[in-house]
């Protein structure tokens, strides 16, 4: 089997338009949660908070590429360009058809879908729908726009498992390179904010509703006073490469992916299940040929929902007991859904390379059901090299990835 390394990373997040801006914000303990007027005007919507990313410099993407991109694909393209530059990616350095593209999002562009139906329903006139809106509202819109923008001709896949989409993309890319079918793959996830996205979580009693007047304290994973998640947006894209290929071309290696697992819990359509999460983490460790004691940090999925955080904490306790530092970056970033896995993985990797573990923001009083694990509540100095990233999704979908910094 081949070894798979990370040679490029890029991100557009609620905390900044690049990896370095995002890391600086985490170093400064800043957060991105805002009260959102767009939500306040929606009848029946009780959650008025969001973690928006800034759309800027989009015209640097040629119109011919940008015309089929909604906000999420633009974020992904910008993140991919950052990853590409960091990796020193040039097509001529790779075999034809051996650089792939795997990316996903929770849904196609909710903004574009809204616009389409806003036009179509009152008129019933397809003549008013633009062709480009069609390309923005396909399930694989992020991945296909990314592949077009970068001119990629290798393996293509769109992962669409809601909030696990991004981590599934990275894990699948890892497995393909490991098996020798690709030399490198751009992979990750993207998301764009829209009232309907928050509306879904609010409807399912999973969005924060009690902190509309106090955004600073709204997103509080594992905390006793948590009351749900805050939706965010952005993109995280990694350039994964076969290790020998990266070494041969003299690329800088930032980390190595050691193992991955993703599974369906099969127990409940919306509720997380501790046994299934634990099983996923154990399988990822097995695939990585690691034991729990090899893991120096866990970047939790924990979104600040009442049910999910408790199940994840219980699962982590079952596998790792209280020995491994754990935190969730959603207190800073909100829940960037399909982009959360890649964004938080990149932040973790860069943080650990600086001997730094970022804490769970707003975790001041650990909820009883979230105890039994080693929570990180302040920035910690660490010598840890190996970490686990978790992402979970509605439908009982779990994903865990084991990564080692280089």
């Amino acid at each position, binding site marked *: 089997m081949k070894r798979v390394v990370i040679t490029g990373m890029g991100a557009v997040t609620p905390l900044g338009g690049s990896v370095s801006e995002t890391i600086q914000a985490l170093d400064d303990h800043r957060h991105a949660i805002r009260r959102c007027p767009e939500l306040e005007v929606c009848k029946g919507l009780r959650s008025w908070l969001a973690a928006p990313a800034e759309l800027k410099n989009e*015209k640097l993407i040629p*119109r*011919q590429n940008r*015309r089929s991109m909604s906000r999420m694909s633009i974020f992904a393209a910008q993140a991919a360009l950052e990853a590409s530059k960091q990796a020193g990616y040039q097509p001529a350095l790779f075999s034809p058809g051996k650089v792939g593209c795997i990316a996903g999002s929770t849904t196609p562009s909710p903004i574009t879908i809204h616009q389409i139906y806003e036009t179509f329903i009152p008129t019933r006139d397809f*003549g*008013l*729908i*633009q*062709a*480009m809106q069609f390309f923005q509202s396909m399930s694989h819109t992020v991945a296909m726009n990314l592949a077009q923008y970068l001119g990629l001709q290798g393996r293509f896949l769109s992962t669409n498992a809601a909030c696990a989409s991004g981590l599934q993309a990275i894990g699948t890319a890892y497995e393909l390179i490991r098996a020798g079918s690709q030399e490198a793959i751009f992979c990750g996830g993207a998301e764009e904010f829209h009232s309907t996205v928050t509306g879904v979580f609010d409807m399912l009693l999973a969005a924060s509703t009690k902190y509309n007047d106090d955004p600073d304290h709204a997103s509080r994973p594992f905390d006793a006073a948590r009351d749900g998640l805050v939706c965010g947006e952005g993109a995280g894209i990694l350039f994964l490469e076969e290790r020998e290929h990266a070494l041969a071309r003299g690329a800088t290696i930032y980390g190595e992916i050691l193992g991955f697992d993703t599974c369906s819990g099969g127990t409940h359509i919306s509720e997380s299940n501790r046994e299934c999460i634990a099983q996923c983490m154990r399988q990822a460790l097995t695939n990585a040929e690691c034991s729990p004691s090899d893991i120096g940090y866990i970047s939790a999925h924990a979104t600040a929902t009442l049910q999910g955080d408790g199940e994840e904490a219980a699962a982590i306790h079952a596998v790792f007991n209280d020995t491994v530092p754990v935190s969730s970056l959603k207190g800073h970033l909100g829940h960037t859904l399909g982009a959360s896995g890649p964004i938080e993985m990149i932040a973790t990797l860069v943080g650990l390379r600086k001997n730094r573990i970022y804490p769970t923001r707003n975790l001041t009083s650990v909820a009883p059901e979230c105890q039994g694990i080693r929570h990180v509540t302040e920035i910690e100095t660490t010598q840890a090299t190996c970490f686990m990233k978790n992402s979970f999704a509605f439908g009982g979908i779990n994903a865990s990835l084991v990564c080692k910094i280089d």
Partner: protein
Amino acid sequence: MTREEIVTTINTVFEESFEIEPERLVPDANIFLDLGLDSLDTVDLVVAIQKKFGVQIRDDERVRSIRTLGDVYQFIEVIYNEKKA
């Protein structure tokens, strides 16, 4: 709608939808070779024109013979007058 208003409206479509600088919007400009539109852009050009002028032109064979911006102006003027009549 006067010819001048048609020209202004069409030029606005090219500026807003296809990001063409105003100084390039001259009647002799070939919309494909000079302004860089492709077949997909023409789909959205038709949609934009239908919205702006309240006309249905998607099935109109005359659309296929459009090459220059001047052709677009001329076509819309004819269509608009046909509609009015």
